[in-house]
């Protein structure tokens, strides 16, 4: 139902669509996972700033990832994917990569240990925002998507609506929670906690269009020096969610990181859903009428 009134080259302007006149530039994250060292400073800095509770001491065996996924009590999640020793069998002979030898990053199929800090995408077309019945989830003047904890009644509708499985409902307080892109800090001109802590600036914060240019430069720079597996994810405003407010540079297919390869916001099909609902309602009424017409019982 989001009108495409002012689709600019940079895609929709979500803040304008949410009724903010003269709003500041849209802020977001560009996460360049090629320089992520998997230190999880972002996970701790986020929890520290937002007082997000610890959620489980469970060794998972998923390499060094024991946080498992984004959820109501994990707003930054670092994924670890070990891709070592998968090279074609002949590769072991010449030692480009040998199971027992050294490993040279420049070689094809060189072993890799992918690390990526995942976060809410703050979608241009945000399913969670659309489906939220109480208006707890809102678009902020910065174009980010935030849960208003004082409004949310924990209906949980946003949880299955999110195409990335980001937002969750917290058992302890029954409310839905997710990354707010440090909305309180933004208001004061401060950098979000995770971006501020990130030792290698894998997490970059700034105006979204600036970040999009920077991301484009970075990916072409990587292609030039041979890392052709680098690709951008959710940077394109033309994708299924109108581009992400937080987007990524990945070194493999999105699904390897647990991300959907071609997410589409469910709201795009909502108009058709309403039409079918209306038809079905009409059909129901018609059926009832048909069922009741010519009923003889009344002549008795």
């Amino acid at each position, binding site marked *: 139902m989001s009108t495409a009134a002012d689709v600019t080259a940079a895609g929709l302007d979500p803040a304008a669509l949410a009724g903010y006149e003269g709003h500041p530039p849209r802020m977001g994250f560009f996460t360049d996972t090629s320089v992520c060292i998997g230190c999880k400073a972002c996970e701790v800095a986020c929890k520290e700033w937002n007082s997000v509770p610890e959620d489980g001491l469970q060794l998972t*065996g*998923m*390499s060094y990832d024991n946080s498992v996924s984004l*959820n109501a009590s994990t707003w930054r999640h670092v*994924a670890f*994917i*070990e*891709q070592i020793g*998968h090279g*074609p*069998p002949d590769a072991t002979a010449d030692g480009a990569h040998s199971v027992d030898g050294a490993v040279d990053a420049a070689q094809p199929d060189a072993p890799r240990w992918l690390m990526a800090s995942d976060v809410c995408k703050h979608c241009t077309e945000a*399913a969670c925002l659309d*489906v*939220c*019945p*109480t*208006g707890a989830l809102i678009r902020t003047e910065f174009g980010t998507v935030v849960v208003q904890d004082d*409004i*949310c*009644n*924990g209906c949980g509708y946003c*949880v*299955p*609506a*999110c195409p990335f*499985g*980001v937002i*969750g*409902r917290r058992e302890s*307080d*029954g*409310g*839905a929670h997710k990354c707010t892109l440090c909305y309180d800090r933004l208001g004061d001109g401060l950098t979000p906690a995770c971006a501020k802590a990130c030792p290698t600036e894998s997490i970059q914060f700034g105006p979204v269009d600036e970040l999009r240019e920077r991301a484009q430069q970075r990916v072409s720079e990587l292609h030039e020096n041979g890392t052709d597996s680098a690709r951008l994810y959710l940077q394109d405003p033309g994708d299924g969610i109108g581009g992400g407010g937080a987007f990524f540079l990945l070194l493999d297919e999105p*699904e*390897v*990181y*647990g991300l959907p*390869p071609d997410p589409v916001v469910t*709201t795009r*099909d*909502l108009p*058709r*859903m309403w039409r*079918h*609902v209306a*038809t*079905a*309602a009409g*059909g*129901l009424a018609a*059926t*009832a*009428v048909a*069922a*009741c*017409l010519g*009923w*003889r*019982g*009344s002549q008795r």
Partner: protein
Amino acid sequence: MSGRSPRDEEFSDMARYGPGEPRDSAEQVVASKVRPDSYYGRAVIKEPVWSSPEIPGYLFLGGLAGASSVLAACAQATGNRELARAAKTGATVAIGLSLAALVKDLGRPVRFLNMLRVFKVTSPMNIGSWLVSGYTPTAAVAAASALTGRMPRVGAAASGAAAVLGAGVATYTAALVTDTAVPAWHEGHREMPYLFAGSAASAAGGLGMLAVGQPAAAQAVRFAVLGSAAELTAKSLLLQRLGDVGQPYRSGLAGKLMETAEVLTAAGLTGAVLGGRNRAAAAVSGAALVTASALTRFGIFFAGRTSARDPAYTVAPQQQRLQEAAATGAG
């Protein structure tokens, strides 16, 4: 669908076994560069946090109430006051229980009034809340008037309103369920409203058959028959469109529930049609239809959970969409 069916044991097991470690001997290096199509087999989207029986109950009872109100209005219009009264009463009780179930499932029940804080066409649950807020009092007034016989004109008006709103109440829940990222639900958004409407009619009809004897029940029987037919048609169309993505409806708990529902629907229908005047047979058939409708809702609910849990259901169709787009150069 890409060559591999998502339930292919090797795929999900390999992803879960260990970090990219094939199940066979540790030493054998897999021929192609194996890349699991998921992150350790974990879900890509999140399972609905709604609990059972509350939410499937809410879906079933909402449908039952809405359809009953519609039936009641038509019954009353054709003079079948006995069926109308029963249906109105049933509708009011059903919507009451449905509301209770919805509020109980809220993470913060005290804030249930926040549902009416805004008016959002983008949120089926919000629109539904407005519908239900309008429908519940009118259905209650209609029922009260029918039962007490007082203020018949107000009762009639309320019945009419309840019927109009009821049709919405019975079907908006389809949009609510399909307006999510759950593949088994979302991909069925074209057929689901008709499935829900048919199921609601079948339940309302069944309730009518239970509540009243012939000849009043005749309308209910016809309503149930037509409803069930619509439901079964919609369901088969849905499953046919979904293909592999519809697998959750055919397996596991959801599969059993859906199958049982189909059996009960068939039994209910034959009982209703052949049972003729026999009061007991009609009642049993009615009960079967009501139960079938409930089981269908539970089946659809659990299928959604399974569909969200396995990454393949989310990833495979999207991969295929990308491949097709790339193939046709439209990408």
